[in-house]
């Protein structure tokens, strides 16, 4: 069992659980961000690339658009608009496979670049800090900024939530603890001033005075660059090192590390006065607020041993992953798995002909050796999964119960508190796909809940229908009786 289970009750230690996966960052960490990625022939803009409602198109097929022009507007309380990554013509609005394990078709807007890459009129703000604070989240929302660390939660919604609950500390996640990924590392090294500017803008928007940037101690260059960029602002933006440990980038883990506090189950970090954003989100916020540029491109790590020139590419949203991979020397014949995100929490993709979305921090083409695929063996109850779990769950017990079909009883071991970080599966010497079990069980329980709900609803509707029928029948009978009485009266009167 890992030495990190030193605190037997898990209350005194600020970091609990966690694993040390092989970093595999060396192939991309030392190469500057590639900005000369050639514009692809066609961009596939998914209208659902954020948590919440899909965006609603506001342009017609055949319309000419400029870079940064609004293509689809956000719908409902949790949503984000989609903008044109370059100038060109909207050629189609259709259903196209999404960057998701199911590759299910989602509403997608097709854009053919005209090669001019002309921006809409953007107005640069000399002093974004003179804006009223509530204006910040409005502009962030209008620019379509979502969480760039992978969750893709609309950033404006989070900032508004923070305004409501009086945030004391803004945590900025520069951990990047997933193997392979180095896009945040490069961003912090190369554009530290912009990132810090973005953090200050968010602080202004939140009316908050303290930001802590957590950077893993395996990124000394990023730490140095960020520290230097933050130095002029006194203690307002503190740059601090955190141990290299997966999942250090889990917001709740970082919160415990920096504040010693835990977010109560079922609560939000804002409930204890903390809000967390990713460094790449801070950069996107700066671009949006200071330069009026909507989120139309992102820096993404393209890596894995089935690409010969792994690197970080700044690519337009909507680029097909296949194009990105080809740009980096992809060898499809060596690829066993395509992964969007990191290898610990990322999503399997059945094929790379799906578009880049705002939340994608990594595109990996992994070879069979890297995936180390083999069959699951019997659980030997070694409890490595227990020591590795940052949430304090008992993965082996949950797995045993799910296997036995007792999904409800798995809930008692914290199924709902599982964050699917994959630490348990990573350490399991029997190679049991634990996370897979938990995702299945959670999904199944939700489905059962929905079925139950539907059954109840159907029953209620049927009952209401029955009641309505009876009421109508009664009313008709009453009406008929009335008419009869009336007719009789008339006959009597006539007589």
């Amino acid at each position: 069992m890992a030495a990190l289970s030193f605190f037997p009750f898990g209350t005194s230690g600020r970091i609990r659980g966690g694993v040390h996966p092989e970093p595999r960052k060396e192939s991309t960490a030392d190469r500057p961000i590639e900005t000369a990625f050639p514009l692809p022939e066609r961009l596939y803009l998914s209208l659902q690339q954020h948590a919440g409602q899909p965006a609603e198109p506001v342009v017609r097929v055949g319309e000419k658009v400029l870079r940064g022009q609004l293509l689809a507007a956000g719908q409902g309380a949790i949503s984000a608009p989609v903008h044109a990554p370059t100038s060109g013509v909207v050629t189609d609005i259709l259903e196209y496979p999404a960057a998701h394990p199911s590759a299910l078709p989602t509403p997608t807007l097709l854009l053919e670049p005209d090669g001019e890459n002309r921006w809409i009129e953007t107005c640069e703000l000399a002093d974004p800090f003179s804006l009223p604070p509530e204006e910040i989240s409005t502009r962030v929302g209008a620019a379509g900024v979502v969480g760039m660390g992978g969750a893709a939660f609309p950033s404006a919604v989070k900032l508004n939530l923070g305004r409501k609950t009086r945030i004391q500390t803004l945590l900025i996640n520069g951990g990047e603890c997933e193997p392979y990924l180095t896009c945040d590392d490069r961003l912090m090294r190369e554009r530290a001033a912009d990132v810090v500017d973005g953090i200050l803008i968010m602080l202004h928007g939140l009316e908050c005075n303290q930001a802590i940037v957590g950077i893993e101690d395996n990124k000394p260059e990023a730490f140095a660059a960020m520290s230097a960029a933050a130095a002029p602002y006194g203690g307002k933006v503190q740059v601090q090192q955190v141990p290299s440990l997966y999942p250090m980038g889990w917001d709740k883990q970082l919160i415990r590390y920096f504040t010693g506090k835990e977010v109560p189950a079922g609560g939000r970090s804002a409930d204890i006065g903390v809000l967390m954003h990713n460094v790449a989100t801070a950069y996107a916020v700066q671009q949006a607020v200071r330069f009026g540029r909507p989120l139309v491109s992102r820096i993404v790590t393209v890596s894995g041993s089935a690409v010969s020139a792994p690197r970080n590419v700044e690519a337009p949203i909507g680029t097909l992953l296949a194009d990105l991979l080809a740009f980096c020397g992809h060898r499809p014949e060596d690829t066993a798995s395509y992964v969007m995100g990191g290898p610990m929490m990322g999503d399997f993709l059945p094929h790379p002909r799906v578009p880049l979305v705002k939340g994608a921090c990594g595109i990996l083409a992994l070879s069979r050796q890297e995936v180390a695929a083999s069959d699951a063996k019997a659980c030997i109850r070694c409890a490595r999964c227990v020591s590795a779990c940052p949430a304090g769950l008992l993965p082996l017990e949950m797995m045993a119960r799910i296997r036995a079909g007792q999904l409800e009883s798995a809930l008692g071991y914290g199924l709902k508190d599982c964050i699917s970080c994959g630490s348990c599966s990573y350490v399991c010497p029997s190679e049991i796909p634990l996370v897979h079990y938990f995702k299945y069980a959670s999904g199944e329980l939700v489905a059962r809940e929905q079925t139950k709900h539907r059954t109840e609803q159907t029953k209620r509707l049927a009952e209401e229908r029955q009641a309505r029928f009876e009421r109508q029948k009664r009313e008709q009978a009453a009406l008929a009786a009335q008419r009869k009485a009336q007719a009789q009266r008339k006959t009597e009167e006539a007589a």
Partner: protein
Amino acid sequence: MNLSLLSAPFTRSDSQVQGIMAAVMLALVPATVFGVVIFGWPAFFLWTVTVLSALVFEAACLALAGKPVNAILRDGSAMLSGWLVAMTLPPWAPWWIGVVGAGIAIVVGKQVFGGLGQNPFNPAMLARVALLVAFPLEMTTWTLPSLPFSSSAPGLFDSLAITFAGAPAVDGMTGPTLIGNWKTELSQGRGLSESLISGHYNVLAAILGWKAGSLGETSSLLVVVGGLWLLKKKIISWHIPLSLLTTVALSASVFALIDGERYAGPVFHLTSGAVMLAAFFIATDYVTSPSSPAGQLIFGAGCGLFIFVIRTWGAYPEGAGFSVLLMNALTPVIDHYVRPRIYGRDLKGRPLDLPGGRR
């Protein structure tokens, strides 16, 4: 298609069941080799017979159950169980003791419950205790150590006769174990200072393992060396060994302070019998011990307490086997009540309070 290609995480640590079993066996090597050296060829034959029969029993059970024999045999768990059984046998026990022991461990202790990971009791301890109850004579005939190739060490043919033909051990080659001796003396009303032990017990010899005892447990030192290596390799955690040894040492100290004539001190307890083997190799068995760190502390303490109680007041000289089995039976209860605290929840699983006392 293979799940690991489809489902996150797409990367894995290189730890494997096979590797874990191999590491534990490697850690047993020093103590085993020492046992073979000081007890001679019969010890080696017995070890071989026990390990081989464990493999045969496992293979037979797997074949009967229609499971892939080769793939599962290679995980090393059957060999480890056989090895552990051999460690706890009197070194000159006849061959059939080893076969029966391996059979009980594998068939009754493991396969009837569904194989690796399913058994509630430690297979090796189950075998040892069953043998002790069924064949008390063979299981308590102890051999005194002798230097290899010395005149008292049996030759190859004599050794074959001892293990396979039931030849009686030569007089002068047998003697009691320290704990056995202590208990006999006490039962005859002699206190520690006037008993044989006072002249017989030598701390250095006890730590090193130059004494009568089971094949692989006499050398506390070498067992600890193997155990510490397992700790360093993170194959086992410190919780069970530490709480087990601390409990034995503490209870022994308390009673030795109360009455030094009747109760042996902590050093005696820690260096004799199977305490060290139990602490590092038996009680730490993943399958039969609790999975939470706190549960493991409780489990270890329970084992330690029972070891001391059985040794001091029980009818049997040695308590490790019984203690581990007793605590194995309690493991599900411990696992049910002692769980890690879930993030954002209190120990009872209720959400933590929000600031301002809201829940």
